[in-house]
C-alpha cells in the first residue's frame, strides 16, 4: 500500500502523502527508533516521516547522521577512496528509494547497515579482480611483521601496522562470499543467525559458506612461504 502511494506521488520536489493513512499509522508506531537523545534534533522516525511526507530535503539529515558508520563499513570491503564513495552514494540512493519499505520493527541503523553490507557484496561480485600473486610482493611492514612473527610466534604482534596490511592483502585474495563471511563471522564475531539476517542468506547457506571461507583463508595463508622469513 505504501509502495503504491510512493509510486503514485514520486516526485522529489513534492511528494504528497495526504491520501496514505497507512504511512501515518506505520510511522506513529515507530517511536522506539529514536537513537538521538537530544531534544533539539529530530528523531529518525520524524525525519523518515518527513521524507515520506514529501520533504525530500530532510533526507540530508539521514545522510549526515549515518555517513560515518556507512563509510567505516564500506572501508572493510573496498580500499580505493573513489570506490568507497561510489558505494556510499549507492547505499544512500537505495536507502532513499526503499525508505517506504522500512517497517520500523528494528532500529533504522540496522536497516541501513544491512543495506550497506548487501551493496558492498554486490560491489565485490561485480569487481572481482585478479586475486593471484598478492603474497609475492609484500610491503616492507608486512615482511617485517612476518619476520617478527616467525621469531616469536607465541608473542602478541597484533598491534603492529604490518598485521593490518597483511590482513588487507589476505582479504583481497578471498572470494566475495568468503570475504564477507570472514569479515562478519571472524572479525566482527557475529553469529550465524545475525549473518543470515544481514546477508539475506539462509542459515544453512551461511554455515556452508563459512566452512568454505575458512578453508579458502587457510589455502591462501599456505601460499606464504614462511621459511624465507626465518
Amino acid at each position, binding site marked *: 500500500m505504501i509502495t503504491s502511494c510512493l509510486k503514485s506521488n514520486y516526485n522529489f520536489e513534492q511528494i504528497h502523502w495526504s491520501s496514505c493513512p497507512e504511512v501515518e499509522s506505520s510511522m506513529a508506531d515507530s517511536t522506539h527508533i529514536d537513537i538521538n537523545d537530544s531534544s533539539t534534533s529530530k528523531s529518525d522516525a520524524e525525519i523518515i516521516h518527513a521524507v515520506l511526507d514529501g520533504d525530500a530535503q530532510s*533526507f*540530508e539529515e539521514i545522510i549526515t547522521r549515518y555517513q*560515518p558508520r556507512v*563509510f567505516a563499513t564500506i*572501508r572493510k570491503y573496498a580500499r580505493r577512496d573513489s570506490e568507497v564513495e561510489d558505494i*556510499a552514494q549507492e547505499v544512500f540512493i537505495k536507502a532513499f528509494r526503499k525508505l517506504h519499505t522500512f517497517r520500523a520493527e528494528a532500529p533504522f541503523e540496522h536497516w541501513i547497515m544491512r543495506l550497506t553490507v548487501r551493496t558492498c557484496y554486490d560491489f565485490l561480485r561485480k569487481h572481482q579482480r585478479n586475486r593471484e600473486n598478492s603474497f609475492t610482493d609484500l610491503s616492507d611492514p608486512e615482511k617485517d611483521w612476518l619476520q617478527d612473527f616467525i621469531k616469536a610466534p*607465541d608473542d602478541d604482534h597484533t*598491534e603492529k601496522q604490518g*598485521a593490518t596490511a597483511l590482513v588487507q592483502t589476505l582479504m583481497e585474495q578471498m572470494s566475495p562470499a568468503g570475504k564477507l563471511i570472514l569479515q562478519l563471522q571472524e572479525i566482527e564475531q557475529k553469529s550465524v543467525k545475525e549473518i543470515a539476517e544481514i546477508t539475506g542468506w539462509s542459515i544453512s547457506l551461511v554455515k556452508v559458506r563459512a566452512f568454505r571461507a575458512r578453508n579458502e583463508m587457510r589455502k591462501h*595463508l599456505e601460499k606464504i612461504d614462511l621459511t624465507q622469513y626465518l
Partner: protein
Amino acid sequence: MKQNMSLEQLQRQLIQAARQAEQDDRVPLGFEQRVMKRLRRETSRYGNRLAVISKGLWAACGPAIAMAIIAFFLSQPMSMNREIPADLALENAVLSPLMAENELW
C-alpha cells in the same frame, strides 16, 4: 606439524589484528550534498519520464475510444446476419425429434 601450528598461530594473530584495527569513518567533504544533488537529478528524470508516458496515454485515449465505437457498430450487422431465419428455426424445431430418432443406435 610445526608448519600447521605456525599457520594456525598466524591465522589467529591476523584475525586478532583485524579485530583491533581502528575503524576509518572519515567522510569526504560535501558528500551529503553530492548525494542530494544526484537524488534530485535522478528523481526529476524519473518524474519527466512518467509525465511523458502519461501524456502519451492521454493522447491515445481519444482515438482508442473512437476505434472501439466504430468496431462496435461494424460488428452489429455481421452478428445479425448470423441469426437463423425464423422459417428455418421452425423447421428445425419440428424435425428435431425425427433427426434424434435416426441417431438412436
